[in-house]
């Protein structure tokens, strides 16, 4: 092990000593490690960072050129992200960016399109999928350089609503189910609001007025009482885990019986531990085919990647970490495609690299990342929504997340997989 590390160290030193041999490829990595969404931003950002570090360490970067990953914690402040973007483009000349939130990603659409820089966001806002700008929806611009890994927020919510409809019928309930959208007044929770409410009406739900709660943890008892007074049956939690926990706990205390539907960022293992039995029963989409602790051919690679920041190999990695790995590796493979046949690793060529494959799973991550397909006018990578349920059976205060998952006190159980139709009229919203 120590010899290996020495060799690695020498290799790294050698890499620095011979800069002229292969110029590193500058890549931006925008993280939220301190802002309103840092609860899920930290594991996701770690996944991206580890994957890119692993590519440098084991594959010597892309086509012999190391990745120079420029990390920046922007604290979920869109203006800071825009300022950093301009610094990256003007000074560092990045060729691609791993991004984060909806507000900043949507604000940057025009910029990345102008500068032709592929932007792989952790925002799955449907407005980013209309690559050719053909949807004709008001306020949606062409986003030919925006990509993300997973179903869009709107599609994930559509999947959950279809499941909710089946669930309602399966339980033999009478009357119309009532649906309510919950979240902050912020571009991220607002993103799937219209799509969800429209489909809910189509499916025969009664749509209640939306309930607001901030992106930060707080006392949301009032919201829970509104939920109960309105008699909601299905409630969508549009925020990230931290504030959702507050709602779940407040609603448990208030004795509100509602089936919560979580956003993809709305629930994870850390949130289950924090919320305890209040999180029991929340249905949410998971973007990878497995979660930590399960096995798949690609998990071998993921465990190696995880060791980049956890040499002991004992850390438990939540679902967002795996998603971060997948989205980083998609970018890496698109870069490799761009570099093929002596090609230049430039923005437009990386974008074309995203179109090179169908049902695309990054090499080495088989069985972990779900297959995605991007086309020049449709950046909805996948229409499959895999729904899982958070199951918490006991006290989660004691023990680590890894222990609780191993003991079965906390489980993430598959509920259903909804295959949505790739409807043209759903593109871009």
């Amino acid at each position, binding site marked *: 092990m120590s010899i290996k590390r020495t060799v690695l160290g020498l290799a790294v030193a050698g890499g620095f000593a011979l800069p002229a041999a292969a110029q590193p490829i500058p890549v931006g990595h925008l993280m939220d490690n301190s802002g309103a969404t840092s609860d899920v931003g930290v594991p996701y950002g770690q996944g991206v960072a580890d994957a890119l570090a692993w590519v440098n360490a084991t594959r010597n970067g892309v086509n012999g050129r190391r990745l120079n990953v420029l990390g920046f914690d922007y604290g979920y402040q869109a*203006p800071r992200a825009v300022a950093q973007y301009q610094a990256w483009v003007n000074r560092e000349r990045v060729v691609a960016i791993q991004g984060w939130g909806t*507000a900043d990603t949507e604000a940057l659409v025009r910029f990345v399109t102008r500068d032709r820089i592929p932007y792989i966001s952790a925002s799955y806002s449907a407005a980013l999928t209309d690559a050719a700008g053909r949807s004709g929806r008001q306020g949606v611009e062409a986003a030919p350089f925006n990509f993300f890994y997973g179903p869009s927020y709107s599609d994930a919510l559509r999947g959950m609503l279809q499941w909710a409809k089946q669930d309602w019928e399966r339980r033999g309930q009478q009357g119309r189910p009532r649906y309510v959208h919950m979240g902050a007044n912020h571009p991220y929770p607002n993103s799937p609001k219209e799509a969800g409410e429209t489909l809910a009406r189509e499916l025969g739900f009664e749509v209640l007025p939306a309930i607001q709660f901030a992106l930060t943890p707080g006392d949301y008892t009032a919201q829970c009482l509104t939920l109960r007074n309105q008699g909601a049956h299905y409630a969508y939690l549009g925020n990230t885990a931290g504030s959702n926990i507050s709602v779940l706990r407040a609603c448990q205390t208030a004795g509100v019986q509602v089936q919560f539907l979580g956003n993809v960022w709305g629930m994870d293992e850390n949130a289950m531990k924090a919320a305890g039995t209040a999180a029991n029963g929340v249905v949410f989409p998971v973007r990878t085919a497995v979660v930590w602790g399960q096995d798949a051919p690609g998990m071998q690679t993921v465990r190696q990647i995880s060791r980049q920041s956890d040499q002991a190999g004992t850390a438990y990695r939540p679902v967002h970490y795996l998603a971060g790995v997948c989205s980083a590796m998609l970018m890496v493979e698109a870069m490799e495609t761009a570099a093929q046949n002596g090609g230049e690793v430039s923005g437009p060529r990386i974008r074309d690299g995203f179109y090179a494959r169908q049902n695309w799973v990054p090499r080495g991550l088989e069985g972990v990342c779900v297959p995605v397909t991007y086309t020049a006018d449709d950046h909805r990578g996948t229409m499959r929504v895999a729904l899982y349920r958070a199951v918490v059976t006991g006290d989660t205060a004691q023990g680590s997340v890894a222990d609780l998952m191993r003991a079965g006190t906390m489980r993430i159980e598959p509920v259903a997989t909804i295959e949505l139709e790739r409807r043209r009229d759903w593109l871009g919203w």
Partner: protein
Amino acid sequence: MAVMTPAGDYRTTYREDMTIFPTLGSRVALWAGIALLCLAPLVLDRYLLHLLINIGFLGIAALGLNILVGFTGQISIGHAAFFGFGAFASAWLHDVLHVPVALAIPLAGLMTAMVGLVFGAPAARLKGLYLAIATLAAQFILEDFFARAQWFTGGVAGRVTEPFGLFGIAFDRDETYFYVVLAFVVVMFLGAANLMRTRDGRALVAVRDHYLSAEMMGINLAYYRTLSFGIASFYAGIGGALYAHYLLFVSVEAFNILFSIQFLGMVIIGGLGSVMGSLMGAAFMVLLPEVVQGLANLLAGSPIDRALRLGASISYLREMVIGAAIILFLMFEPDGLAHRWRLIKAYWKLYPYSH
């Protein structure tokens, strides 16, 4: 004009007493300074230009607050909201009404001044803490307005805007936009320095020094207090508009109360009641995080970092240092950087007979 100031006061006219640049040297220094700054884009890299541009538009806004706090003795903890209003107004004027950016910036300043007059109206009746709370309300009312007025601000999603352009030339890069900001800084600072020489300017200072005496001398307190808010907002609006067309994206998130406090920090650190101090304070506020960031980068991974297990929290050092700087300035340098600068100048001028 004298090359040097004589020892002792030989000024016999008000005109001599009110001059901004008492010696030929100070005037030459000013022109040389501006000329040097004009050369900056040719020699400095983009990063330093970026910092200078930030200092420029924040300095203009800070000057506005200084006119209000330092010269008139009022208080405002909603300055960032006016800064934001200027930014949104300019973006709105340009994107919706298609006003050219070069015209939208001053117009945004005027619009912000109008809003400032409205929110400054309580100053006619309130003083001290009560006024502070009233301006705090302005901060929250405007912030909420930004988040909801879809037609004006683009709502919570914000508004993307266009770069500054004049005669078909786009000033869309640090190298070119620097000149735009520099021009505004020169005009606005000269404007403020001259304002303080006028009857209105002296009235503002009189209101600060003793409102009762001022009133007895025939100064309309309500008028000048409200006017001060209008002027402060005008400066904030211009600063905000310059910010909008530099970043090209305006979002409600930027203009929170913390930013308002930072403006107060700038004028306190720079020096209350000093025109140049506002620019110094802005420079201090812009450069301090960069210096701390540099130190944090040095610390990261070092034995100190490992021993204290700072890790991710190292980035919070920045926020803490800013707080500490304000406390230390209030304790040891209450007159701000401008006062320290005067002392340094005096030391050199009078050496070795400084007593």
